[in-house]
Every structure is written in structure tokens, then in C-alpha cells.
């Protein structure tokens, strides 16, 4: 089992950390994952409408789940980021105490950081880096409708009302943005 970690040196740093947890219950790897992901999971949950305390608690639960489920992580199928994102998302969906979330929708635009240098991460993260790059290439108005659909899951009619746009414009923006992202990702898979 422990040998499999060495076999996976091609995986990116974050994936290697999860593999090390699975193989050796490696606390140092866990601390590194926690330092990177817990603040981002908290940020994601707050943007989705959780208050700071609830987001902190759920971020803790999400990282605890990473520790427990590390053995089921398959780096060939998903990157660490995608895997941890789905864990956090599912915890959020299952959360019962979300009465306040709709009233706390935050209206900040994406904080998309510059694309990393080539070679910094390998294999699976290429997809995510490309997604990030693609999002940067999309016009801001298309990213905005994607953001509203993705994080707040509002019907197109509500997005149109919120942005004071005709419904047709919202629909075509979403279709355009989805089409471009999908094309890019399908080319990669």
C-alpha cells in the first residue's frame, strides 16, 4: 500500500497529500491540505450564503471527511480540488440549518487568480487550470450569469430580473458561456 504513493509521483502536490493520508494517515500532509483548502471551502460556503460560523464549521466537516474518505480518492478520476469541492458541496446541500442563506447572497465577482506557470502542477489539474483560464477568457457578463446559475442556482427569469436584462439575453449568455466551457473541457478529457 505505502509503495503506491511513490508510484504516483506524477500527481500534483494536493493529490499526493490525499494519497499519503490514505496510505499512512499522514498528519503533515493533512495539515498542508487543511491550510490550503479549509479557507477556500469556507470562502465558497460564505459565497453560497452561509454565515461565517456555519461556513467555518462546515469547512471543518469537509476536511474531516477528506481525512476519512482519503482511501476512496482516485487521482485519475478527479483532481484534489474537484474532489474536495464535491465533498463540501454535498455537505452544504445536506445541511439543514440554511434558513438565512437566501437573504445573505453576496454579490462579489470572481477572484480568479493568475494562471500558474506551466509545470507547476501536473496531469489532472491541467483541466482545472484550463477551466480557470477559460473563465478568464470569457467576457465578464458571461462569467456573471454562470456565477449566478452555479452558486445561487436561480432560475433564468430571476437572474434576468436581478440584472435588469431581457430573459432572452440571459439565456443566450448562459448558452454561450456553457458552450465555450464545455467545448474546452471536452477537448481535454
Amino acid at each position, binding site marked *: 500500500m505505502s509503495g503506491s504513493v511513490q508510484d504516483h509521483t506524477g500527481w500534483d502536490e494536493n493529490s499526493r497529500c490525499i494519497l499519503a493520508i490514505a496510505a499512512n494517515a499522514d*498528519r503533515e500532509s*493533512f*495539515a498542508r491540505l*487543511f*491550510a490550503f*483548502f*479549509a*479557507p*477556500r471551502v*469556507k*470562502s*465558497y460556503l*460564505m*459565497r*453560497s450564503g452561509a454565515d*461565517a460560523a456555519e461556513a*467555518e464549521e462546515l*469547512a*471543518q466537516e469537509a*476536511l*474531516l471527511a477528506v*481525512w*476519512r474518505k482519503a482511501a476512496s480518492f482516485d487521482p485519475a478520476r*478527479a*483532481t484534489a480540488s*474537484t*474532489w*474536495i*469541492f*464535491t465533498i*463540501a*458541496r*454535498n455537505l*452544504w*446541500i445536506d*445541511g*439543514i440549518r440554511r*434558513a438565512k442563506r437566501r437573504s445573505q447572497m453576496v454579490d462579489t465577482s*470572481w*477572484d*480568479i*487568480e493568475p494562471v500558474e506557470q506551466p509545470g507547476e502542477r501536473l496531469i489532472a489539474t491541467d483541466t*482545472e*487550470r484550463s*477551466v*480557470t483560464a477559460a*473563465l478568464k477568457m470569457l467576457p465578464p457578463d458571461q462569467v456573471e450569469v454562470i456565477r449566478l*446559475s*452555479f*452558486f*445561487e*442556482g*436561480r*432560475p*433564468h*427569469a430571476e437572474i434576468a430580473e436581478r440584472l435588469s436584462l431581457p430573459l432572452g439575453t440571459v439565456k443566450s449568455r*448562459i448558452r454561450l458561456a456553457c458552450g465555450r*466551457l*464545455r467545448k474546452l*473541457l471536452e477537448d481535454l478529457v
Partner: protein
Amino acid sequence: MIIQHHPSEETLLGYAGGALPGPLASVVAMHFEVCLACRAELSLWEKVGGAFLEAMAPAEMTSNALERIFARLGEPVREPAEKKSRERWIGPGIWYTPLVHDKDQGTRLYRLRARAGTKLPTHGHDGRELTYVLTGEIADGDRRYGPGDFLEADATHEHEPRVSGDTECVCVIGSEGPPRIPGIAGLLLRAFF
């Protein structure tokens, strides 16, 4: 199983990003179980989610967050207790099983079993209503929904689903907004909550 009706893009995106309330997400998840095409689409959007997560500006964690989680690593996993719910008769030819009721969100998940020819009780115009067909067939307007199909109604959509075909229909419904169901079924449904 030939699946003809899928979740809309807005519903799929809402699920992928975690914006869909739990009971509604449960119905979408049932469709994903049987629909490869939607699952592929979901996995694509989850990659987008992963990229978003990675690029997100970090929020500050409380100062002892790491110590607290280290203290919890050995905790036993608590499995949520399974709730038993009983099927109830709510009107001629219709049986109802409550599965989840989130009072804070005003959302519900329930199973309906209805005889052929029955008109299904719906939640009117106060929110989204997602239906997954397990067995039998539902007709809504000129559309037919069979096992595996996904039926989506929102506040702007007038719909009157009824059980078509010769057999009884079992479906799972996730809805938001208070029930506004006319007739005896609505009365009984309200009485049970």
C-alpha cells in the same frame, strides 16, 4: 429504460454548484443514478467547481482551527439515524409518504403512489417542483414521462400531471413553497404537516 426528459441546465448547474435545496437536489440525484448523459454533464461542472474553489480568495479560519480538527481526527463516524416514514392515503387513488420536510427552507421531499388515471396533487405556483418517475407513466400536457424521466415545474409553469398508462405510478417529488393543493388531497396533505 429510455430516458427522454432531463433536468434543465439551470437545475443541473444549481445542483453542481450546491445552490439547490437538499430535497430538490435529492430528486436530481435520483435522475443522475440512471442517466449517463447528465452524469457526464455534472462531472464537467464539478471540474468547474474545483477550479472555482482553487481560485477562490481564502477566508480566514479561526486561529485554533487546525488544532481543533487534529483533536477530531479519531472521532467515530456518526451515521445519521434512518427515519421511518409511513405511507398515507391522501385521496382517491393517491398514497403519500413524507421523506423530508425542511421547515426553515420550506422544502419537502416525498413519494407519491397513484393509480392509473389519477390527477396528481401539485404545489401550485409558489416555487419549483421537481419530479422523478420511478414506475408507471405521467402525462403533463402533451408530454409523457416514464421511469427515469425528470419532470420540472416552476412558478411560471402551469402544469396538471396525471397518471397515464395502465399501471400505477410511483414518483419522488421535491418541492419548495407552501402546498396549495385544491380538493381533498390538498386538505389532507396540509393536515399531515
